[in-house]
């Protein structure tokens, strides 16, 4: 069951098209990671789903409602990239304030436990470490007992330990039956958490797949060489391969790069200037999408 979605959404900022005809669906109980580099349109997608901005065309829906309706917001928890939070309030005050916005908030102690804030409830926000501050923001997102969490780069700027701690809390939320939309530019993070990954680039969906597909594809390698073989011939040599010409060179992205090289050399013993590198994320995804089309 789809609980939140973007339907053919386009959003422009002056000459910049942040999102171009994007469809996105988040199902109940799913953890969907929106993966992409900076400026890909991830934050725009998040803001549209939270009703903080409106699409130029297409629609954003949460539980079938306009995201800015209060009834929709009652069921969403959001964690945004914030410059600074009022530092002169205590952790407990922030949590109690946000809890008061919701009709059926979690008990205070449960929120504290869900975000791992035990022992620092009385501290002023300004006196917390970066990781603790992010966990407070996470607490504010979960305190209303929402059905879906929208997390915009929740671990940006955190050290490895803080990142893993936050991952644990995100997983705990999903284990309780919640759904999550998370943006990140770390493949590792998407892989560690998500059931489904959507790759966004230049405002378009570059690829979408399950995390196991991504894991597999992330292992893909790029083979670059000069060969007399034609592209379709190479593409037919293995499953999930993408081929493109780059001047004199041919670039092949394949999961089984060793097998690919053997087959290539068997067909064209004169192939030369062979170079094998690990494929970038985008290239890895290209292999998926081309195999599907």
């Amino acid at each position, binding site marked *: 069951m789809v609980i939140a979605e973007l339907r053919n959404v386009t959003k422009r*900022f002056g000459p910049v098209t942040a999102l171009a005809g994007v469809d996105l669906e988040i199902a109940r109980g799913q953890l969907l990671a929106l993966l992409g580099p900076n400026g890909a349109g991830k*934050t*725009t997608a998040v803001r549209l789903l939270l009703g903080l901005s409106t699409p130029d065309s297409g629609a954003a829906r949460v539980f079938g409602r306009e995201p800015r309706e209060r009834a929709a917001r009652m069921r969403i928890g*959001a964690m945004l990239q914030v410059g600074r939070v*009022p530092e002169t*309030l205590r952790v407990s005050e922030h949590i109690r304030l946000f809890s008061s*916005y919701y009709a059926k908030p979690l008990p205070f102690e449960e929120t504290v436990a869900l975000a791992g804030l035990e022992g620092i409830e009385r501290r002023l926000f300004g006196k917390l470490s970066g990781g603790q501050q992010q966990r407070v923001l996470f607490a504010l997102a979960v305190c209303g007992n929402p059905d879906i969490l929208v997390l915009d780069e929740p671990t940006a700027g955190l050290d490895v330990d803080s990142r893993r701690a936050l991952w644990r809390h995100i997983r705990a939320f999903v284990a309780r039956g919640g759904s999550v939309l998370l943006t990140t530019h770390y493949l590792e993070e998407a892989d560690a958490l998500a059931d489904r990954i959507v790759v966004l680039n230049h405002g378009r969906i570059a690829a979408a797949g399950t995390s196991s597909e991504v894991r597999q594809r992330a292992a893909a390698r790029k083979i670059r060489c000069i060969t007399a073989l034609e592209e379709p011939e190479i593409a037919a040599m293995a499953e999930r391969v993408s081929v493109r010409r780059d001047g004199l060179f041919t670039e092949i992205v394949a999961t089984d790069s060793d097998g690919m090289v053997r087959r290539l050399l068997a067909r064209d013993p004169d192939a030369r200037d062979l170079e094998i590198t690990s494929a970038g994320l985008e290239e890895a995804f290209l292999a998926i999408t081309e195999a599907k089309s």
Partner: protein
Amino acid sequence: MMKAIWMEIQCEFLSRLRTPRYSIPVLSFPLMFYLFFGVILQNGKLGGVTPAVYVMCTMASMGVMFAPLTGLGAGIAAERGLGWMEVKRASPMPPIGWFLAKFCGGMAFSAIVIAALFLMAATLGGVRMPAAQWATLGGALMAGAVPFCVLGFVLGYLVTASAAPAVINLVAMPMAFFSGIWVPVQFLPHFVRSIAGFLPEYHVAEMSETLAGATGHGSVMSHAQALIGLTIVFVAAARIVWRRDEGRVHAG
């Protein structure tokens, strides 16, 4: 809902109390000027009353302008600029609670300025008035803070956090001058007086001076009406900036 409003007000006050460095300058300037011009320069009469009474009114008028403009204007600009307001708007926060919290903060701040000035006037300034007159004057000044709370909200939405303190001074200082706070209006050129009628500060100052027994321009009622009219204009402006902000976004 009631709980959310109450919590919001509580947090606003706690936050303010914990950052006195923002409140103390706003509070101390009117008191300092009162000490100079109302207590030390105790010569002659202004509008038929002693400087101790007259300057108490002008400084209180200035206080109810600066306290809400700084408290709401700079405070809101800061919260918006840092993206904190976005987090609140993404939540089911009832905006009314937030408005009320900011409003109560601005009013409380104004009340403190008025009370401190009254206390100083009654002790150092030797001002004597019947209790009812003190109360009426205090009430009128508090009412005078209302349009400035709304104006502070508008400014908070129009300017960036870094520009807010400067812009607030650029709005408030000339407004004080044209309203006769630094120099009584009758000593100002005629064209200034025609501008003054459009300034809330002028009406607050004139209204309070009249209530304190000075011979002012126009009746208390006419000033009250002007203040209500200006408040309505500011509320309309506030609605526009709040709505406009709802559609504004940053690419990313």
